[in-house]
């Protein structure tokens, strides 16, 4: 069965650079979520989209933005990167408000 696809799997950026993370949800899933997981931490919700419209907003910094496109893929754009942005970034998708299925994540390292 198709799963949530995230790219890239690993990304190394320098401070103050920008990064774009991509997410391809499971087909026919109507909701996409972005989470950030720091080392030894639980996943923290950043932002979500329902049918291509932003639906909920969590602890997403103003330096970050996200959108969902007509083909339902989503991108998380991160600017002015800081060392503290180093984390695993997960995308998840769901349908009918039930369980969310997670991608393998993008490990972002800011140096």
């Amino acid at each position, binding site marked *: 069965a198709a799963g949530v696809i995230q790219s890239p799997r690993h990304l190394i950026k320098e401070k103050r650079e920008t990064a774009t993370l991509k997410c391809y949800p499971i087909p026919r899933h109507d909701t996409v979520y972005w*989470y950030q997981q720091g080392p030894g931490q*639980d996943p923290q919700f950043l932002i979500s989209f329902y049918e291509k419209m932003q639906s909920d907003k969590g602890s997403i910094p103003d330096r970050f933005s996200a959108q969902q496109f007509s083909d339902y893929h989503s991108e998380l754009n991160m600017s002015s990167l800081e060392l503290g942005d180093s984390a*695993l970034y*997960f995308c998840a998708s769901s349908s009918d408000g039930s369980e*969310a299925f997670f991608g393998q*994540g993008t490990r972002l390292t800011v140096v």
Partner: protein
Amino acid sequence: AQSVAQPEDQVNVAEGNPLTVKCTYSVSGNPYLFWYVQYPNRGLQFLLKYITGDNLVKGSYGFEAEFNKSQTSFHLKKPSALVSDSALYFCAVRARDSGNTPLVFGKGTRLSVIA
């Protein structure tokens, strides 16, 4: 507001013994409850969910969980632990009537199964 508490950072159990990973929740109204497992440098894998119906829910890899409304708990259990069960386990909640709002996760419990 929704919240999840996993009171144990670490659970150690011998292979072949039963395991329990504890979870309590707080939510307005009726909950959707979930368990996920995370292996090192991997995404979260869905294990099982409680939506409605039987309080005992069976999931992947022999895991099960029991919903207890009066105690607001949803403990994860397995009758006989395997070394390969060693991982990080997250409990999550969503209010049933909240549509597609994001899951709220607990802090996670690291399970270590010793051969």
